[in-house]
């Protein structure tokens, strides 16, 4: 993220005015258990992923004073493609780019995330990897399990988001207003192995998803 004060001001205005305005008028959020969101960093918000709006909506739920600490984790190959998109993703959204695909032996692709956690940042993470089929829960990748095991004292908040895939699904540039729901789950900590954590995380997400009455989408 840029340290240029003008860029930081642009980021602040983008989130304080544009994102909040659009979310208030075009979407309308129902937030369950807002009090479970972390008050400060370091922390990890781990949500399901159906739409670009997911990131923006999640970030809008946190107080603006924490905005400098909020860092969505995003695929480098997608978000850094193209000069303008790369600049916007890095400096306005504030993403931490992550390399996808084959990992060279000995390389630690998640090291950038370790560094961010050490700095007290709040990571916004989508363990499904990509947005996938709108309004369907995909398989979780286990990178978050690795992070959890490496940082057992950092709170990890599972968050189930619903409706965003209807409002702006993958492959569409047309935002259609729909009410969306964000259910914040109880905080998890990475005690034990990566697989134990993944089990607990999946159970929490399934529990949150089960409480929603989801209208059909066909």
């Amino acid at each position, binding site marked *: 993220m840029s340290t240029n004060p003008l860029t930081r001001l642009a980021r602040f205005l983008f989130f304080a005015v544009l994102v909040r305005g659009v979310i208030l008028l075009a979407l*309308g959020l*129902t937030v369950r258990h807002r009090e479970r969101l972390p008050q400060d960093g370091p922390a990890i918000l781990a949500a399901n992923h159906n739409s670009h709006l997911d990131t923006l909506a999640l970030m809008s739920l946190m107080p603006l004073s924490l905005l400098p600490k909020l860092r969505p984790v995003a695929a480098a190959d997608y978000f850094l493609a193209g000069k303008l998109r790369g600049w916007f993703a890095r400096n306005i959204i504030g993403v931490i780019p992550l390399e996808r695909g084959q990992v060279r032996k000995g390389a630690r692709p998640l090291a950038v995330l370790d560094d961010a956690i050490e700095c007290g940042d709040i990571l916004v993470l989508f363990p499904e990897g990509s947005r996938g089929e709108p309004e369907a829960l995909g398989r979780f990748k286990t990178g978050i399990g690795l992070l959890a095991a490496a940082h057992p004292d950092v709170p990890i908040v599972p968050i189930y988001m619903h409706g965003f895939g*209807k409002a702006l699904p993958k492959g569409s540039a047309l935002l*259609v*207003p729909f*009410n969306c729901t964000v259910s914040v789950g109880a905080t998890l900590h990475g005690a034990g192995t990566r697989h134990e954590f993944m089990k607990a995380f999946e159970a929490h997400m399934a529990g949150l998803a089960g409480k929603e*009455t989801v209208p*059909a*989408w*066909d």
Partner: protein
Amino acid sequence: MIATLSAALELPRPVVVAMLGLWAVLIAASALVLALRARDEARYRELTERTASWWWMIGAFTFAIAANQVVAIVFLAIVSYLALKEYLSLIPTRRIDRGLLLFAYLAVPVQYFWAAVDWYNMFIVFVPVWMFLLFPALMALRGDTQNFLRAVGTLSWGLMLTVFCLSHLAMLLVSGELTNPVGGGVGLLFFVVVLAQFNDVAQYTWGKLFGRHKVTPSVSPKKTWEGLVGGVLTTTVLAALLGPYLTPMDYLWSALAGSIIGVSGFLGDINISAVKRDLGVKDSGGLIPGHGGILDRVDSLTFAAPAFFHFFRYFFTP
């Protein structure tokens, strides 16, 4: 003081007095709720939330009416938009219709524009005729016949309920300037909105106090005959008191209008209850703390607004 307020806000004097009365009732009710809460906080938590939300809603309503007619129409259009959005989010929709739903939202500003320019003939046919024909045509042209009837039916019905029916409030406001020399369009709007909302509260209160016999156990198990009759009677009495002051109706006509608002309000309420039952949800949304969604709040007005509008138009428009 009232004369100054009336001049400064450019509102008819009776509307200013009625508005002050409404705020007095709100303040008195809030004091009562605070006293109850001091006795047993847990038991009256929802009531406290509801009351706090009433402050926001009556505040917004007062602001919209006091500012000017354009602000009031925009306010009502936003209510319609939020209700339509809530409705479309609750029902099953087809992915292929996403773009069409954006068009459906555009019907809101257009419909309220007809009201704003007082073009009654277009106002009354735009949704029931033109939108009714447009959307099935567009959907058929898209070519997906799977669940076609359901998609056309739910969209047309939702537009009728949240856009057409609710927009009668705006038409009442605009057309009332000529038809109501007593309190103007604002007087008519105030009359129907406040009575419909008051009727909800009255039915709830009578039901809580004396409710025994259920009216529609399968749709809305909390609605009782005692609540319904008590509520409609209370609304009728209040209408008989308010009507001659705000509208050209005498106390008998006002009482009749009040009972129409009371009964149609009840029917609008159970109509939305039936929709929610069908869809398996408890609240239509989470917009208004203690009340649920916006549809939960304007459900009675979806029926009461057109019912009162056409009653008044038939008997009191020269």
